[in-house]
C-alpha cells in the first residue's frame, strides 16, 4: 500500500486545521481582553488620559458586545486586514509581508546547518553505541537544551563578529549577498537550538533501524556498509526525525524571536518585540497570529508528508 | 407470586439477550445476544478461544462495559451504571496478577479500601477483617503488609481474590485467573476458588480457554464462539458427548479430555 494519504485523511486533517485556526483567532482576539478593565486602557498604557481612552473605545468599537467585536475581527482578517500600526503608521499586513521572508530565510539556513550538524553526529553515535563517541554525542542534547538561544547567539557574535571580524555583527544588509552573509550567524544559532533535539531522535531512530532486518539483509546482499547507512538506514530515519522536529516546532520557532533580536534581523520576531516595546497592539496581535498559522501549516505539511511516506500512520488520536 | 418471579429467584444471575458492541468503523459486535443463568452456589464455566467475546461478556457483567439486553440480579435488573450497592454484587478476578493490584498499596490496604468505601465494617474493625479475608484467600500473614512488587504471581492472585470477596458479592467472575500463573500454582488457585464457592455459597463464573480448568471446578459449562453461546451442558455430559462441532474441535485439542474413541 502506498501510504494512507487518502481523501478521507486529508479531509479530516483539514477539518481539524480549520477548528484550530478558529481557536487561534479566538485566542489572539482574547489577548486584548485578557486584562481586567478597559481594553483601551491596556492599549494606551497607564499614561493615557481618560479622554484618549474614551476616544479609542468609541473608535474601535470596544464598547460593543464581545461576540460582535469578535465577528468584526474575523471579518477584518478574512479581508486580509491585519490592522494598522500606530507606531509605523502603516498596515500591519505590509510590515509582516516584509518581515516574514527574513524569518523564513533564517529558518531555511538554520535547517541546512542543523541537518549538516546532526546527521553526521547521529551517525557517529549510532554506529558506535556505548563507545566514547556515543557518550560525547549524547551529552550534546543535555548541554544544548540548557542554553538559552540568545546565549548561543552571544557566543557566536563574540567569536565571529567581534573577535575574528569575519561576519557582520547584525542587520540584514541591502544586497542578496549581504542578506546571505547576515543569515549565517543567526542560522547557526537556529541550528544550535535544533541540533540537540534532532541528534537525540535521529540517534534513537538510527539505532532501531540499524538493528532491523532489512539492514542486515542489505549488508548480506553485498552492499557496502557506507551505502547501507546512507541509502537505507538514513532514509528510514528521516521520517521520525522530521516528525520530532515538527512536534518541537513551537519551541524552535519561538526561539527565533529572541535570535532575531540578538542579531538585529528585521524578521517577524523582531517586529513582535518592537510592537511590544511601542505598545503597538495590532502588530503584537497579528504577528502572534502569523506565528500560530506558520506552526499549523508546517505541522499540516509534515503530517501529510508523513502519511504519504509511512504506510502505518492512521488518522486518530 | 407470579411464576416468572419465582423462577428468577432461583437464579442469582440471569442474562437475557446480552450484546456488547464496540464503536469504531465498522463496529464490532463482540457479544451477540447471549442468555445465561447462574444459580446460587453454582460454578459455570465459560469456554472459548481468545477473541470469542468471553472477556467482553465478563466485563459487561461487572459493569465495566455498556451492553444491550438485560442483566437480572436476584430477580432485579442490574443496569450498566450501578449504585455502589449494586456494583458490589458482581466482582471480578482478572487474568494478569501483575497488573491487577495497585503497585502503591499493600495487600491489607488493597482489601481494606473496599471495606472502608462500602462501609462493610466499623472503622476499627476494618484492618482485622482485611487480614481475615487475606487469610481466607490463603495469603501468608507475613506478606500482608507488603506491596505487590514483593509478591509472587500466585500470592497476588490471592490478594485479588480477597479484594473481590471483601465486598461479599453474589457472583464472582474469574477471567482466566490461572492463565498467567506457573503450572504448579494454577491447581492451588483453582482449588481455592472451588473451596470458596462451597464454603461461601458463591456463584462462580469461570472464564477460560482451558477445558481442563472447567472440568476441575465447574458443574456446568457454556461454550462460546464468535460472540454466541453455541452449547450449554453439565460438564460430564459436555465432555462425554459434545453436540456442537466447535465444542468437538475444542475437545480434540485437549486429548486427555476428549471423548473416548468409538
Amino acid at each position: 500500500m502506498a501510504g494512507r494519504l487518502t481523501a478521507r485523511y486529508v479531509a479530516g486533517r483539514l477539518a481539524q486545521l480549520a477548528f484550530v485556526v478558529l481557536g487561534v483567532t479566538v485566542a489572539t482576539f482574547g489577548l486584548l481582553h485578557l486584562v481586567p478593565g478597559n481594553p483601551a486602557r491596556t492599549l494606551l498604557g497607564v499614561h493615557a488620559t481618560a479622554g484618549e481612552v474614551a476616544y479609542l473605545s468609541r473608535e474601535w468599537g470596544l464598547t460593543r458586545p464581545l461576540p460582535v467585536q469578535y465577528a468584526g475581527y474575523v471579518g477584518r482578517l478574512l479581508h486580509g486586514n491585519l490592522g494598522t500600526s500606530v507606531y509605523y503608521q502603516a498596515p500591519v499586513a505590509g510590515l509582516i509581508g516584509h518581515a516574514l521572508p527574513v524569518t523564513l530565510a533564517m529558518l531555511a539556513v538554520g535547517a541546512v546547518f542543523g541537518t549538516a550538524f546532526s546527521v553526521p553526529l547521529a551517525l557517529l553515535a549510532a554506529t558506535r553505541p556505548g563507545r566514547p563517541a556515543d557518550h560525547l554525542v549524547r551529552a550534546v542534547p543535555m548541554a544544548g537544551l540548557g542554553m538559552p538561544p540568545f546565549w548561543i547567539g552571544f557566543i557566536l557574535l563574540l567569536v565571529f563578529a567581534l573577535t575574528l571580524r569575519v561576519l557582520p555583527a547584525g542587520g540584514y544588509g541591502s544586497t542578496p549577498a549581504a542578506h546571505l552573509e547576515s543569515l549565517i550567524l543567526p542560522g547557526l544559532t537556529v541550528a544550535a537550538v535544533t541540533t540537540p533535539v534532532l541528534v537525540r531522535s535521529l540517534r534513537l531512530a538510527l539505532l532501531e533501524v540499524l538493528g532491523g532486518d532489512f539492514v542486515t539483509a542489505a549488508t548480506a546482499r553485498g552492499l557496502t556498509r557506507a551505502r547501507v547507512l546512507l541509502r537505507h538506514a538514513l532514509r528510514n530515519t528521516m521520517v521520525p526525525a522530521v516528525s520530532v522536529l515538527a512536534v518541537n516546532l513551537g519551541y524552535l520557532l519561538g526561539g527565533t524571536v529572541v535570535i532575531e533580536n540578538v542579531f538585529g534581523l528585521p524578521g517577524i520576531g523582531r517586529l513582535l518585540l518592537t510592537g511590544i516595546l511601542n505598545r503597538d497592539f495590532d502588530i503584537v496581535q497579528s504577528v502572534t497570529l502569523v506565528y500560530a498559522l506558520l506552526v499549523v501549516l508546517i505541522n499540516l505539511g509534515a503530517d501529510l508528508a508523513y502519511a504519504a511516506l509511512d504506510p502505518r500512520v492512521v488518522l486518530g488520536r | 407470586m407470579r411464576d416468572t418471579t419465582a423462577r428468577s429467584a432461583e437464579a442469582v444471575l440471569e442474562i437475557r439477550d446480552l450484546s456488547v458492541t464496540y464503536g469504531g468503523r465498522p463496529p464490532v459486535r463482540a457479544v451477540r445476544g447471549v442468555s445465561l443463568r447462574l444459580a446460587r452456589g453454582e460454578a459455570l464455566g465459560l469456554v472459548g478461544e481468545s477473541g470469542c467475546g468471553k472477556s467482553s461478556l465478563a466485563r459487561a457483567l461487572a459493569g465495566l462495559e455498556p451492553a444491550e439486553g438485560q442483566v437480572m440480579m436476584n430477580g432485579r435488573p442490574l443496569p450498566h451504571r450501578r449504585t455502589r450497592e449494586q456494583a458490589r454484587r458482581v466482582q471480578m478476578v482478572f487474568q494478569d496478577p501483575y497488573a491487577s493490584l495497585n503497585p502503591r498499596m499493600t495487600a491489607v490496604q488493597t482489601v481494606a479500601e473496599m471495606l472502608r468505601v462500602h462501609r462493610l465494617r466499623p472503622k476499627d474493625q476494618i484492618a482485622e477483617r482485611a487480614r481475615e479475608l487475606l487469610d481466607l484467600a490463603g495469603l501468608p500473614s507475613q506478606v500482608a503488609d507488603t506491596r505487590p512488587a514483593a509478591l509472587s504471581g500466585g500470592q497476588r492472585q490471592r490478594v485479588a481474590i480477597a479484594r473481590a470477596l471483601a465486598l461479599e458479592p453474589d457472583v464472582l467472575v474469574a477471567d482466566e485467573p490461572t492463565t498467567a500463573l506457573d503450572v504448579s500454582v494454577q491447581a492451588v488457585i483453582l482449588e481455592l476458588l472451588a473451596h470458596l464457592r462451597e464454603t461461601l455459597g458463591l456463584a462462580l463464573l469461570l472464564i477460560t480457554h482451558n477445558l481442563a480448568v472447567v472440568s476441575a471446578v465447574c458443574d456446568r459449562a457454556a461454550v462460546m464462539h464468535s460472540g454466541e453461546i453455541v452449547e450449554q451442558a453439565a460438564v460430564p455430559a459436555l465432555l462425554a458427548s459434545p453436540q456442537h462441532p466447535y465444542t468437538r474441535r475444542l475437545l480434540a485439542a485437549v486429548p486427555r479430555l476428549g471423548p473416548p474413541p468409538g
Partner: protein
Amino acid sequence: MTRTLAAGLALLAVIAGMVACAPLLAAHNPGQQDLLHVLAGPSAAHPLGTDDLGRDIWARLLYAGRADLAIGFAAVAAPFVIGSALGLLAGYFGGWPDAAIMRVLDIVVAFPFYVLVIAVVFALGAGVGSIFIAITAVGWVSYTRIVRGEVLVAKRLGYVQAARAAGLPAWRILLRHLAPNVLSQAVVYAMSDIVLTILAVVTLGYLGLGVQPPAPEWGAMMQAGEPYLSIHPALATAPGVAVVVTGLALSMIGDGLAAGLGI
C-alpha cells in the same frame, strides 16, 4: 542512582548553596553603585569586575540566581498540577471532556512557546506575576499530554478495572489509584521543564519583560551587558555561564531520573 543523576544533584546543590549564601559569598550589596569605578576588570574587591553603574558583578550574579531559581521552580508547580489534573480527567473519562481538553490543547500548541509567553506577558504587563500566569497558560499542555497517555494505558489495567467494578467513586480512582502510578513520567518531565522555564524567565528578562531592573536577574543582566559585549564581555557572559551551568545541572538530573525509571 545513576552517575548522571548524582552529578546533576551535586552541581545543583552547589549552585543552590551559593545563591542561598549570597550575603556571605559577596562582599558587596548587589544594588550598590560606584560611579567612579564603572566597567572595571576583575580585582580583589570585585572578583568579576563591575558593571556600567559600578555594581559588583559577582554579587549581582549570586542574587540574580536567587530570583531565577526561585521563579523557575515555583513557575513549574502550577502547570504541573493543572496539566496533570486535566490529563487525568481527559484520559480517564474520555468522551466530551477529553475532546474539549484536547481541542483547547491543539490551539495552545499552535502558538510557539516564546511567542505566546511574550504575548501574554505583554497583555498583562511585565513582571513576576505575569511570568507565572504566562508560563502556566502555555506550560500545562505537556503535562496533560504525558499524563493522558499514561492514563489511557493504566486505566485498562486490572487494578483500575477492579476499582471500577467495586463501584469506587471516580475521584477516588483518579487520586488513589491512577495519580500515584501515572505521575512519575510527569515528574521526570518537570525536571526538564524547569530548565525550559528558567530559560524562559531569563529570556523574558533579556527582552525586558521579566524581573524589572534594578533587581538583579540573569537575563536582565545579559541585556544590560549586551552593548559592552566587545569591550567588557564579562558583563553579559558571566550570567550566561551561570544559566548554562544551572541548565546543565537540571538536564543531568532529568536525564538521570529518566534513565533510573527506565524511560
